């Protein structure tokens, strides 16, 4: 594959064996910044445009990301699965899942990939509850904590934050999972399936940036009720 000049200069640092997978749905206002923030560290960024109606895909492509476009909206879990298959097709050794709304920090993602490499971990989950940097509201904290308890109870994992979009997944773990729940409960499903692989995993403290933008788009209380019910009834 030919490299353009920018890639050649930074390819040694730019994690050529890592693909960042971003499910993208109607985030045209922020996706360009997210992509251009990632590219210096991770040269391979793929956005799964999940049937956006605001031109998000074009914006992301202009910013330098590869784009896979779902012809119809399928949901975030389906977008992640598509991204995994794309990344594997392109020889990814590690995949970073990253949210399109700019709530994750690139330095955290980089630290998680380094951790996966040095500690030989198949999965690194980001957690906003391992330190006190992230400040969710009280209600959000309760919701997320309940979801964590329910997820740990329903899976073989012991995590402090089950619904964090920032994860690093190694190729062998990727090949063992197949997300089937298209809608939001994937946050649970992915943990479930990764737990079932029995591969070594770790958790890493990350900061989630609650901007007004991400707050206005974030998971609602009703959504966590859905997560709970889908966990109990399987």
């Amino acid at each position, binding site marked *: 594959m030919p490299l353009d000049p920018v890639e050649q200069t930074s390819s040694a640092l730019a994690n050529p064996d890592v693909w960042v997978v971003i499910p993208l749905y109607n985030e045209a206002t922020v996706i360009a910044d997210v992509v251009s923030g990632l590219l210096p560290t991770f040269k391979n960024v793929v956005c*799964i445009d999940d049937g956006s109606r605001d031109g998000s895909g074009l914006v992301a492509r202009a910013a330098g990301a590869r*784009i896979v*476009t779902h012809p119809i909206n399928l949901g975030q879990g389906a977008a992640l699965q598509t991204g995994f298959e*794309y990344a594997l097709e392109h020889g990814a050794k590690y995949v970073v899942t990253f949210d399109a709304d700019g709530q994750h920090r690139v330095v955290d993602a980089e630290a998680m990939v380094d951790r996966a490499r040095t500690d030989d971990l198949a999965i690194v989950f980001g957690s906003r509850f391992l330190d006190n940097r992230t400040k969710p509201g009280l209600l959000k904290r309760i919701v997320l904590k309940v979801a964590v308890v329910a997820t740990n109870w329903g899976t073989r994992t012991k995590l402090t934050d089950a619904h964090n979009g920032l994860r690093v997944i190694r190729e062998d773990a990727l090949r063992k999972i197949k997300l089937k729940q298209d809608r939001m409960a994937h946050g649970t499903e992915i943990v479930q399936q990764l737990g079932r692989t029995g591969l070594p995993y770790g958790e890493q403290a990350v900061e989630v940036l609650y901007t007004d933008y991400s707050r206005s788009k974030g998971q609602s209380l009703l959504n966590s009720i859905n997560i709970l019910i889908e966990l109990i009834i399987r």
Partner: protein
Amino acid sequence: MTPFQFLLILIVAFAALYALRWLSGDRSLAIKRLLTILLAVGALLAIIFPEALTWAAKLVGIGRGTDLLLYLFVIGSIVYAVSGVRTRARKDARVTELARAVALMEARLVDEQQDRRNEQ
């Protein structure tokens, strides 16, 4: 036989024939067809001999044949609704697979073009 009974028999017969012809599924098809035939025969018997329905209702401790029919109808509706949800979920999964295949194929083409443009 009353004219209404005659009408009912016609409807049941047509519906059953139609269902037998257009039911889908591979492994379960034969079972579905058998059930359809059983249901149609039962319906025809109940139409021609309404007393038989009351007799069957008494047998299971229900007062009237019409009540038995109502209960069976309610149960049938619930089963139908639940199986509909399952069918839809399965269809959704297939649509997802198809859409993903299309998306990945398109991405391959676009990537190829982009790489070629970068070469030039």
